[in-house]
């Protein structure tokens, strides 16, 4: 599988090699030490340890790596297994310069008389003559050579590396024998192969270790770019009272560096994080983080300063934490809290009138994700929290849980750090260095053997369905993506079609063509044959392809108009319940037969009144079935392609509680609605090929004192904090609301941890853990200062959906407006000292009224006659199921002017120049007839071309002679050989690349039917039934100043 390759040039040595070098140089002295033996015994258990193999499901890893010319070096800091998150700068590349000079030094350094394993003291003399004083071989570089292969780096995917001749040697080493390698020939081998990169890497390791001891301070001053992310956080972790055996890991060398000893030996314990005295460079760097605050403290009168929308995408606020902790904190795209400063008590939270909650996107596709394999996963014994960067080590052997404050023992094997290959550094393990990490779960985490990927497709083939012609597109998409379905050799696939009867397809190996079995008894559904309905995809691929090719033609003459969706779902559930898996249901009309039949409830002339609409399901059949599915690890994804009302409120339950997703294509027709066809194809492409996790559960834990009381998203809450997710997909977001149960006065930091246990499509059980750490504050002002307006709006939207279902839509709208009024009046009455006229808001909430107004005009909550019930409910489903980023884009799209793109301020990625036009306010006054404007609404891009748009843009970008020639439906920009076209296309594709799905571009001219959609998103303007932004502000001001 994965083999660490050793490059001849040394240019791209992997993390392993880096250490090979060091180790090989030091190889011989270490072979026979008694300590080593002790270590080796522990090593056996660690040996599968850092198995970094990243399966094919992370394909981006490879490009990400190859992009980096010095990828090898960058790995040497942290072996690939523990590769830092993408936002980290590649560790220590700049290190490469100076250490070369130390080339001759290192061997001697290592061959020095250091008989015991982690005793690097002996290196000091060798290190002092090094050219740069910053290279202090403080910590133990030393580790026996035979340890190196404990973790196989994912770099092995790197084609360059694997082509190296030395690889064979290493491959041998991967076999178990190296575990007991006293074998000198092996070591010779290593020495030879590693020798090229050896010095650099050797010194580099030293470097890192030094830095970890010092908290990175010294290094940062001398060469700021060299900062290694892994070292960033060691501050506060030097142990003041190390057992004698460990002391040599740190102090002697560091004092040799002439560093003030005061900067060492921070007191350990929870306060370690909050302390500030970290040396000058740290102060300066943390100042840069703090520099936001003067801005943040500003009070803004929204009535005077109208243009509050930043011209660049809004960044989430940075929690006011010490820089070292913040650096380790979870990426806000994955895990975000509405208040980045947690109020100390519930009373304070109530006073602030802001919702407290978390927004999660736990299964997001990540470019880099550290994966850890170890036989024991270290967790708190009482609350089962996974060890994370925010725990505190009381001493070498004990750590204190940051959620329940229990003191736990550090297991023996956790003492060994596979990254630095040093024993006795549990605080530098990847688990403690990464807020986002994935564990390979051992068998204790399985209730049954990991299930195979099972995909079942359920197609509606009634007359109505055939009319829409969707089967052609879907079958074609399936045919195209059959090989890309995530899975392995165990992948199973099956098909069911239904109208008033249910049709099964036997795909037994050896049949010349698929065999259709019809079950017409829909009252008491049964499975006509026990096997061969779900077949192994690899073994029966030809039959499957056969079926997909013939399926669209099979029902063209059908006259059956009834739809027995309920029984079909029951049949599909029965078929899948032994294994679990994913059921994709395509439905085109209201189900009319058998259980789960529904009646039309929409009355078109009542659309306008917000009261009398049916947002609640009309039957509990779909909910019950969804819970049954959830119990058997089956998730149902619903594709609704319907022109008529189909009661999505009821049907949607099947996906909602089984953790599926809903796709809705109103008025789908293969001829009359080509835009929907294209949309379906693009979304199916993503749907079929995206990553998938099976039989998953997610638990969200938070520090004692905080408790979660409400959950939002598609799942079933099985017990107080356990979410049952039969399937988890990377496009799903979740939200929870929290309350402060007990006062948090005696703590300064709180943490939240989400742990997602799932079976990957390759049949591995994995746990993805995200940990977020936030400060606790005691004053209202600080609470407001740390408010995250996007997260608040997102959570409010989720709450408003709940409110509209349990109470009514108008209640929900009132609640949204009241949320703004309450929080702003709370701010006015308690946080503002002098009462000024106008609408005063804290800087952090300056966009709050705008976003709430945008929510009120969003399809879910808008009033007026133009929203069909199903579309409204679909929008609500989206609110609940979308990650925050996309929810914010659909609510408040970004508007750019694109007819005058220039390279000014452009960013360049991979030699492509991407212009960065400013984001405009969503108001018609920003539009002009002689321009072209692009609106990015998350899942759609709309390019509105003004009537008097410059001829230049028309011909150079759109490729048409004049305005009248722009086609009615245009969804692609021609690739013209002009700079304007190149810029526009670069910009649009850059926007597309930022999201996993493919937003379709609509070119809209004045007469296009899409123009209404475009203008509807102009949230700052007045519409027939909604206020303009300014009127809204006046209304709020009136209420606030009451």
């Amino acid at each position, binding site marked *: 599988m994965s083999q660490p390759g050793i490059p001849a040039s040394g240019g791209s040595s992997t993390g392993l090699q880096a250490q090979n070098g060091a180790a090989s140089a030091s190889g011989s002295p270490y072979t026979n030490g008694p300590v080593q033996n002790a270590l080796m015994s522990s090593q056996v258990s660690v040996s599968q340890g850092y198995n970094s193999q990243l399966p094919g499901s992370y394909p981006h890893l490879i490009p990400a790596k190859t992009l980096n010319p010095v990828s090898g070096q960058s790995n040497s800091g942290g072996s690939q297994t523990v590769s830092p998150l993408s936002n980290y700068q590649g560790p220590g590349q700049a290190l490469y310069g100076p250490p070369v000079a130390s080339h001759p030094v290192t061997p001697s350094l290592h061959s020095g008389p250091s008989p015991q394993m982690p005793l690097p003291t002996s290196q000091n003399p060798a290190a002092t003559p090094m050219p740069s004083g910053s290279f202090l071989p403080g910590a133990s570089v030393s580790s026996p050579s035979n340890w190196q292969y404990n973790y196989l780096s994912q770099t092995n995917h790197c084609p360059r590396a694997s082509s190296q001749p030395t690889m064979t040697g290493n491959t041998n080493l991967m076999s178990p024998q190296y575990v007991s390698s006293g074998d000198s020939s092996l070591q010779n081998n290593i020495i030879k192969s590693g020798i090229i990169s050896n010095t650099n890497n050797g010194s580099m390791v030293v470097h890192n270790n030094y830095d970890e001891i010092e908290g990175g301070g010294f290094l940062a001053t001398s060469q700021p770019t060299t900062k290694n992310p892994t070292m960033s956080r060691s501050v506060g972790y030097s142990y003041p009272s190390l057992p004698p055996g460990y002391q040599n890991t740190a102090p002697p060398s560091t004092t040799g560096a002439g560093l003030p000893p005061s900067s060492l030996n921070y007191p350990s314990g929870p306060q370690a994080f909050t302390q500030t005295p970290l040396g000058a460079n740290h102060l300066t760097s943390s100042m840069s983080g703090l520099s936001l605050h003067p801005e943040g403290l500003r009070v803004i009168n929204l009535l005077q300063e109208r243009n509050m929308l930043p011209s660049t995408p809004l960044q989430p606020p940075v929690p006011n934490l010490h820089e070292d902790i913040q650096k380790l904190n979870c990426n806000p795209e994955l895990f975000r809290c509405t208040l980045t400063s947690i109020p100390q008590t519930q009373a304070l939270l109530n006073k602030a009138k802001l919702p407290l909650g978390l927004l999660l996107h736990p299964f997001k596709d990540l470019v880099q994700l550290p994966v850890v394999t170890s036989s024991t996963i270290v967790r708190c014994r009482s609350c089962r929290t996974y060890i994370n960067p925010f725990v505190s080590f009381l001493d070498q052997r004990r750590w204190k849980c940051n959620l329940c404050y229990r003191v736990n023992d550090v297991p023996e094997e956790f003492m060994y750090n596979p990254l630095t290959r040093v024993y006795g550094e549990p605080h530098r393990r990847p688990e403690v260095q990464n807020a986002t990490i994935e564990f390979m779960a051992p068998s204790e985490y399985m209730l049954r053997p990991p299930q195979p990927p099972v995909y079942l497709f359920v197609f509606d083939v009634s007359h109505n369905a055939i009319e829409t012609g969707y089967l052609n597109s879907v079958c074609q998409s399936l045919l195209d993506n059959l090989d890309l379905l995530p899975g392995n050799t165990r992948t199973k696939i099956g098909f069911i079609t239904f109208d008033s009867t249910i049709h099964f397809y036997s795909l037994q190996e050896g049949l010349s063509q698929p065999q259709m079995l019809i079950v017409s008894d829909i009252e008491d559904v049964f499975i006509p044959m026990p096997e061969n309905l779900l077949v192994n995809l690899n073994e029966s691929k030809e039959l499957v392809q056969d079926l997909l090719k013939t399926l669209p033609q099979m029902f063209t003459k059908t006259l059956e108009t009834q739809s027995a969706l309920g029984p079909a779902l029951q049949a599909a559930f029965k078929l899948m319940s032994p294994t679990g898996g994913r059921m994709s249901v395509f439905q085109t009309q209201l189900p009319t037969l058998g259980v789960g039949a529904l009646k039309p409830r929409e009355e078109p002339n009542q659309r306008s009144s917000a009261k009398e609409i049916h947002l*609640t*399901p*009309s*039957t*509990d059949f779909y*909910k*019950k079935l969804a*819970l049954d599915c959830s*119990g058997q690890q089956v998730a149902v994804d619903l594709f609704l392609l319907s022109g008529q009302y189909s009661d999505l*409120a*009821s049907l949607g*339950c099947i996906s909602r*509680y089984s953790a599926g997703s809903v796709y809705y294509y109103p008025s789908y027709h293969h001829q009359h609605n080509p835009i929907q066809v294209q949309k379906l194809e693009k979304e199916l492409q993503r749907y079929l090929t995206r990553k998938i996790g099976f039989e998953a559960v997610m638990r969200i834990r938070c520090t004692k004192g905080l408790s979660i*009381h*409400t*959950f939002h998203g598609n799942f*079933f*809450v*099985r*017990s*107080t904090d*356990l979410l049952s997710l039969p399937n988890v997909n990377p496009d799903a977001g979740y939200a929870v609301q929290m309350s402060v149960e007990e006062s948090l006065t005696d703590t300064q930091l709180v943490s939240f941890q989400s742990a997602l246990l799932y079976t990957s499509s390759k049949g591995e059980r994995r746990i993805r853990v995200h940990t977020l750490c936030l400060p606790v504050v005691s004053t209202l002002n600080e609470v407001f200062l740390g408010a995250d307006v996007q997260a608040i709006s997102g959570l409010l939207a989720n709450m408003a959906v*709940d409110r509209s279902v*349990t109470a009514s839509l108008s209640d929900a709208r009132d609640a949204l407006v009241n949320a703004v009024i309450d929080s702003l009046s709370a701010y006015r009455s308690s946080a503002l000292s002098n009462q000024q006229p106008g609408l005063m808001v804290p800087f952090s909430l300056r966009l709050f009224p705008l976003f709430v107004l945008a929510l009120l005009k969003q399809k879910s909550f808008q009033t007026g006659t133009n929203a069909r019930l199903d579309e409204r409910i679909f929008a609500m489903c989206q609110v609940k199921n979308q990650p925050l980023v996309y929810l914010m884009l659909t609510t408040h799209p970004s508007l750019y002017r694109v007819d005058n793109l220039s390279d000014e301020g452009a960013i360049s990625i991979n030699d492509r120049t991407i212009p960065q036009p400013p984001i405009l306010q969503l108001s018609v006054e920003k539009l002009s007839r002689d321009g072209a404007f692009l609106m990015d609404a998350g899942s759609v891009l709309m390019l509105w071309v003004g009537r008097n748009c410059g001829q230049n843009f028309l011909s150079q970008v759109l490729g048409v002679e004049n305005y009248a020639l722009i086609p009615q439906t245009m969804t692609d920009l021609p690739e013209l050989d002009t700079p304007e076209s190149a810029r526009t296309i670069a910009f649009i594709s850059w926007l597309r690349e930022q999201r996993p799905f493919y937003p379709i571009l609509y070119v809209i001219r004045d007469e296009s039917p899409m123009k209404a959609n475009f203008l509807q998103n102009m949230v700052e303007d007045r519409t027939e039934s909604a206020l303009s932004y300014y009127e809204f502000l006046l209304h709020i001001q009136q209420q606030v100043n009451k």
Partner: protein
Amino acid sequence: MEAVVFVFSLLDCCALIFLSVYFIITLSDLECDYINARSCCSKLNKWVIPELVGHTLVTVLMLISLHWFIFLLNLPVAAWNIYRYIMVPSGNMGVFDPTEIHNRGQLKSHMKEAMIKLGFHLLCFFMYLYSMILALIND
């Protein structure tokens, strides 16, 4: 006759007390993660109607036997039971819905309700006991 009425009420009240205790135990099991929401709710939903019928029966009995004070005391609780049952949304699986019970503090309010009912039934129990003894002596 009077004694018979109160003996019946007493027995019915005992049953209701046991039912309340059962509700409390099951809900607290759910709170402590001993059972999952689905089985908890299906257990409890089974007993919603018996509880409603049992309590309505006593209330009606008191009306018929013209014990105005006890009837008026029971009326609000009986009305609440019926209201709660009628107001279950069509998409829910009963008074206790497994998908909703963990949201918006529903578990806590169910718990509170069961506690209040337990107290109420205990009060009734002693009242019926007293009335029964009184009736037996009068006979």
